[in-house]
């Protein structure tokens, strides 16, 4: 299968997305977009199982929003909310990403090699076999996993970064799990979340995810797998049940 190359230089996001859709409809499985510079919404609402889109440059906000199927690999940083309300597929970012990464994501995977901004994984949710996964290689800012309703977040704190050193982790969480490599200060925990060391069973569950993440970035997973993890989850699936009369 030949690779389709698109030059995004001076191209507005709407014609860029139209072009991507056309190529996917024509059957392209490998699409490379060069000279991406801030175009928002790349892959927005795009379907296409088995399609891989390589983004060379810095995409704008809401990358892969509502996306259902394709894989997007970014060689660069990503802006605000990559994977926003994403349904299926994968986003691999060889760099850092902005705030609200994986916002309301309902399925698929997002791997960020470096750091993410505030509110990562906010309101991620799960339904049956659809279980979204966000893995962050470096660190996350405050309010990670806020209002989280389902899915998995893993923060590895690689390259000397602390996974996070800020407040509000899992604030209002009522489903899903946050795994952090190393210990977590209780002061960082948000309203409604609690922490516990990871059990062997839980470690086994996240092992293939960590291996896949490491493979995606050519990292040796051995030290990651040997580390201790902390699991942060909800104190209750009904955090507000006692608030009202």
């Amino acid at each position, binding site marked *: 299968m030949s690779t389709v190359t698109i030059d995004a230089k001076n191209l507005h*996001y*709407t014609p860029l*997305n*139209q072009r991507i*859709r056309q190529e996917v409809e024509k059957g392209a499985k490998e699409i490379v977009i060069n000279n991406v510079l801030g175009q*928002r*919404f790349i892959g*927005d*609402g795009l*379907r296409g199982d088995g399609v891989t889109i390589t983004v060379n440059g810095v995409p704008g*906000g*809401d990358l892969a*929003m*509502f*996306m*259902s199927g394709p894989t997007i690999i970014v060689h660069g940083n990503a802006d*605000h*909310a990559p994977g*926003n*309300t994403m*349904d299926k597929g994968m986003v691999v970012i060889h760099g850092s990403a902005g705030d*609200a990464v994986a*916002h*309301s994501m*309902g399925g698929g995977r997002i791997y960020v090699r470096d750091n993410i901004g505030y*509110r990562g994984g*906010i*309101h991620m*949710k*799960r*339904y049956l076999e*659809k279980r979204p996964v966000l893995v962050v290689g470096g660190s996350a800012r405050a309010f990670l996993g*806020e*209002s989280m*309703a*389902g899915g998995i977040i893993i923060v590895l704190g690689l390259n000397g970064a602390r996974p996070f050193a800020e407040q509000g982790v899992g604030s*209002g969480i*009522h*489903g899903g799990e946050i795994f952090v490599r190393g210990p977590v200060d209780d002061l960082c925990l948000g309203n409604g979340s609690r922490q516990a060391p990871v059990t062997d069973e839980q470690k086994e569950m996240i092992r293939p995810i960590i291996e896949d993440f490491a493979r995606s970035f050519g990292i040796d997973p051995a030290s990651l797998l040997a580390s201790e993890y902390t699991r942060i989850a909800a104190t209750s*699936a*009904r*955090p*507000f*049940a*006692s*608030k*009202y*009369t």
Partner: protein
Amino acid sequence: MSIGSIPLRYKVSIDPEQCMLCGRCVDNCSYGVYRMEGDKIRINSRNCVACHRCTAFCPRDAISIHEKPTDYRSHPVWTRKIRENIFNQAKTGKIILAGMGNALPWPMIFDRLVLDACQVTNPSIDPLREPMELRTYLGKKPASLTLLESKKGDVELLTKLTPNLQIETPIMIGHMSYGAISLPAQQALARAVSRTGTFMGTGEGGLHESLYPYQKNIIVQVASGRFGVDINYLERGAAIEIKIGQGAKPGIGGHLPGEKICADVACTRMIPEGSDAISPTPHHDIYSIEDLKQLVRSLKEATEWKKPVFVKIAAVHNVAAIAAGVARSSADAVVIDGFRGGTGAAPVVFRDHVGIPIEAAIASVDAKLRSQGIRNEVSVIASGGIRQSADVAKIICLGADAVYIGTAALVAMGCRVCGTCNRGVCAWGIATQKPELTQRLDPETNAVQVENLIHGWTLELAELMGAAGINSIESLRGNRDRLRGYMLDEGLLNVLDVKTIGA
């Protein structure tokens, strides 16, 4: 010393001369008022919410329900409700929830506005004889048109038009989610709107597959919880509505309690069964008016710019300036939800005290958009407290393009406005997910009732327009000269831009 029991809200009695012990009241009451003991029906009046399900199905009219059989010491400041709320919170220490819309006796602006009719100087129009144009297009209108005339004389339109929704009557049904109301209730509304050429909203509960046949008449909602939202859902909708706020509870999110998340609701919302569905207070990808533009455009981009995108905001103090911001966000319509808007559940303190009436909100939004020369950029939809066709006519005169109704459509299906939607045991099968209750609704019968209501209001609207010498809804829109204020103060008359009666 405990507070003890508070006085009965309703006293239920059965006339033994009339009662034939058929037990229909026992079967129909979902609040536990009645029980059969041998050959007697026992009554626990304390459980009654006055939903009238029992009286509606008593074959002998044997049941009487009296409100407030025991008076409190009357007091203009410390009303019954105020005292009972204090008792409740003294016992529980919690936030008080309730259903339906604003329950305080605020003055009703609609009822202080009168409509006009022709006499002598210009003739009224008989809708039986003349065509009345009630069709409305919702969405952006171009500020100007560019036309190209060929040598042959053919004219070509060069301006690219944006998608609009065509509605045959300016009455739509607002967003009530599957979860807040039952599936048969949604199915009835869907049938009604598809037959009357209008639209309904899904609310933030996803689109159940049994509604797919009616999707051409359904506006899908994207709210802060993003429940049920994926690309299939967005593509099915005739339009997409971003819900920023709701008139019944401006500024806060929503919590659908786990008890209402049955398997089917869970499937439609795409969340686990039995967990709370929590819609955050803000959209966490919208922290500014610039971010709103980004969400509007992301929805358009996802659906290839084929669908109008609406933005719904609650009517709050600065609603006009906010609507002007929305109009610049690429949105196609702004929905203004007034403080009388209903809800499945809201804190009473919000429902009753936060926000402003729809009449003042629409008038100021329309005026602001016109003053900035951007009224054509968005349609304006009024929602929250539209009770009758006269309200529709008046709010259109104040500048709305169309209305959303909610409670009125539920009343057409049997709802008696008992205000206990939040408890999830609606005896009418509307605001509940219990199968034994939801099966009380028949989508077809109830669709006909809602259809009749829309039809009746549409006829009345045509008559009102004809009497005023107007044959097109376009000429009614923003036509404040057709309104006069009756005992409204000068400040409010200025906001409404309406003259007083006699002027």
